[in-house]
């Protein structure tokens, strides 16, 4: 297999990792905290979409309504749990996010059992060939949608008032409050956006892997992507996601299938050794 073919193959998974990483980065930027339940958000989001699909909604509508409903889930998580921890020390948040991950995992297990649910692709999965490279319409649409989302995010942060308020909160919480920014509202919106984007990630990857509680592992690789790109960099998340998927593909093809996760998470460890703040990130500041 050529390197270019590997790159093309990595586009779908890479997009998913990137979106999961974007969800992580959004929360990290706003609150300086790592949401260890991120993998489960991707998984839970996919189930939310599945529920709509099973109730007879057309697929294209599921892809729009699903992320919105996922956003509501994120808002509720903030309202019921994370908001109440905002004054606690950082470890409380970290453990709570792990707990939320566990809760979502067990809920999925309890409601849907551990069965694998198939999910239809939006576009054709008929392999096409162009200059000797094989691809499907579906695995072009996924990275296109991802790029679209990230582009929208850039525009949102750059040009909208709310986006700027979010940036202000990320940079200086007290300062933002002093100039009259509604901190609670911004944090709630951050959670909603993070969960909505995670849901989209889950729904985009679902046709390829099916929906099951184990889908979390895909979301979890968003950590590797985010750590590689820098926990507070959106473009880092995008590049990190593609890089992780590409390395994973390389490992899978040339080295080992069984141990590919060792390599992927080895990247995370190596990142800690070399540059804990990631390729595009800046130093983590202490929350005082």
């Amino acid at each position, binding site marked *: 297999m050529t390197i270019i073919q590997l790159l093309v193959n990595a586009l779908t998974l890479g997009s998913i990792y990137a979106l999961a990483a974007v969800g992580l980065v959004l929360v990290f930027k706003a609150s300086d905290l790592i949401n260890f339940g991120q993998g489960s958000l991707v998984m839970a989001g996919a189930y939310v979409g599945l529920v709509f699909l099973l109730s007879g909604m057309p697929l294209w509508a599921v892809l729009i309504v699903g992320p919105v409903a996922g956003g509501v889930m994120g808002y509720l998580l903030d309202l019921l749990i994370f908001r109440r921890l905002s004054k606690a020390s950082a470890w409380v948040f970290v453990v709570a996010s792990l707990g939320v991950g*566990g809760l979502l995992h067990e809920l999925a297990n309890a409601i849907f059992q551990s069965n694998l649910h198939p999910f239809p692709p939006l576009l054709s999965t008929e392999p096409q060939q162009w200059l000797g490279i094989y691809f499907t319409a579906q695995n072009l649409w996924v990275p296109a949608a991802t790029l679209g989302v990230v582009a929208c995010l850039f525009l949102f942060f750059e040009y909208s008032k709310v986006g700027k308020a979010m940036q202000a909160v990320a940079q200086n919480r007290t300062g933002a409050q002093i100039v009259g920014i509604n901190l609670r509202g911004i944090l709630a919106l951050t959670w909603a956006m993070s969960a909505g984007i995670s849901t989209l990630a889950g729904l985009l990857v679902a046709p390829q892997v099916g929906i099951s509680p184990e889908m979390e592992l895909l979301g979890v690789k968003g950590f590797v992507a985010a750590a590689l790109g820098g926990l507070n960099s959106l473009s880092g998340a995008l590049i990190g996601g593609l890089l992780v998927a590409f390395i994973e593909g390389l490992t899978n093809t040339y080295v080992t299938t069984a141990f590919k996760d060792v390599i992927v998470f080895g990247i995370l460890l190596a990142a800690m050794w070399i540059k804990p703040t990631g390729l595009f990130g800046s130093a983590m500041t202490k929350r005082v």
Partner: protein
Amino acid sequence: MSSRWGNKAWPWSVALVLLVGLILLPLGLPQFRLYMVTLALVYTIVAVGLNIVMGYAGQISIAHAAFMGVGAYTTALLMSLLHWHVLPSLLAAVVLVTLIGFLVGIPALRVRGHYLALATFAFQMIAETVIANWTGLTHGPNGVKVPTAVLGPWTLKELPLYYFVLLFAVATFLFSWNLLRSRLGRALIAVRDHEVAAQVMGVNLTWYKMLAFGISAAYAALAGGLFAITVSFLDPLAFTFWESIKHLIMVILGGLGTVVGPVIGAVLISSAPELLRGFREHSLLAYYAVLIVLLIFIPGGLLSGIRRLAGILAPAWIGKSGSAVNPTPANRVKRLLQGYARPASNETLLEVSNIAIHFGGIAALEGASFSVAPGQIKGLIGPNGAGKTTLFNVLTRVYQPSAGKLLFSGDDLLGVAPHNIVTLGISRTFQNVEMFSTMTVLENVLVGMHHTLHAGLLASGLSLPSQRREEREAMRRAREILEFLDLDGVAGAMASELPLGIQRAVALARALAANPVLLLLDEPASGLSHAEAGRLMANVRAIRDAGITVLLIEHDMRFVMGLCESITVLDRGEVICTGTPAEVSSNPRVVEAYLGKEEVSHAGD
């Protein structure tokens, strides 16, 4: 925490009763129950170890199931493949896992923040994958059969196994109990409570976090080995990510940062399958729900809940503050401090030359230069934002200046690691006091002594006579210092709960405990009543008379002018004037920059 328990005999009698109970417990138990109890002991070891890194050093590990797994498989494979004896197998597991722990932990702990959680998370995923897929060694999902261990005349099954595990559980518990009540435990709590203050007191942050993480990894490995010989069959599912979360729940449920809490948590969670039988297959759902509810309502865990209840019924230190003014005779103070102060030999003790530091384009200090002579009380004044506190932060290596030189008794301070500044003889207080908030007054002062004490890991964990002697001596000296500053009445109170005036005195006591040559005081009189400020003045003079040089920042002009022999005035990062109080207050530049229209008539007081 001896002071929190009170130095009474009852904890010992409680411990004795518990121990006898644990020894007698299995005699009436059916085999299955005995197995459950043995496993609970194994989990106690993990939880106690995890608490050292999480509850004390304040760092989160998500890899304790992986550490346990590597420990379990190492023990099992050494015993089954190489036919090793159980004891060297356990030892090898502990050594291997501790090394892995260092490899995983060091890079993440160099940086401030929750990188350890990320790194351990990565290791957990790696270990899981390796255990499940290295079929040649671990047989993957088919598992490994662990040979029955034999120790002398005993086959380690059932009752002998219980006692074998109990021995380790009690030993590891006592080790951590001793450790956490020693100077090392205090240093860990200090790091958790306030990193900068801990560093200024001489605590090497990275090293202490590493130590805590290393010990906790070793505990997990030991627990893993014992787990292997208890269950006699290893399955990769016993060491997954979710198991790591279960360990976290144990520690938090019982009470993070208490020595006994994790034991309670481990026992409760390992018996949870029994307790939660009503939930059937959804028992895990209940775990996570309980965890989240706990975090929201009592993040301190069950023990803190109980303590809070007890606190409502009997407030801890009411009526103990404000001890009678009982000035220590001057000659005694002199003896108290002189015994420890090291006289400076040079003409100038501290030479600050051309120090510059910038924060994002704004210059906080721009070529500031001045010197401090030994035996002086020197004042550092200037309007807000002049760079005074920044200068203290540069002196104690909290900030790195972009240019300039710092010489202290001939030593270049900029070549010294931040936690070693205090060993050279510079200690300080902070403008915002910065108490170690979960410690008592006495413990705060003991942390101040950190660099003067030397008990190491083994001496502390085993509570060797040398360590106990050193602790007794430290305790005696800490009490003397508290007495000198009229704080003996609040020695057992939580420092952060005291009124600001008393906290300032505690901060001074903590800085004095470090046995300084040069004492840096950042706004020591701010927020003090007139009487308190007067007493502080007398105390600072007494400290100087005992041979300690004092450099202080203060806005209270009466205080500065009345106390200092020499004053340096900073304005916008530059020294604009140095001289006696009279010279400084009549200097037109000072009047213009700082005093402005303020009256300076009392300057000569």
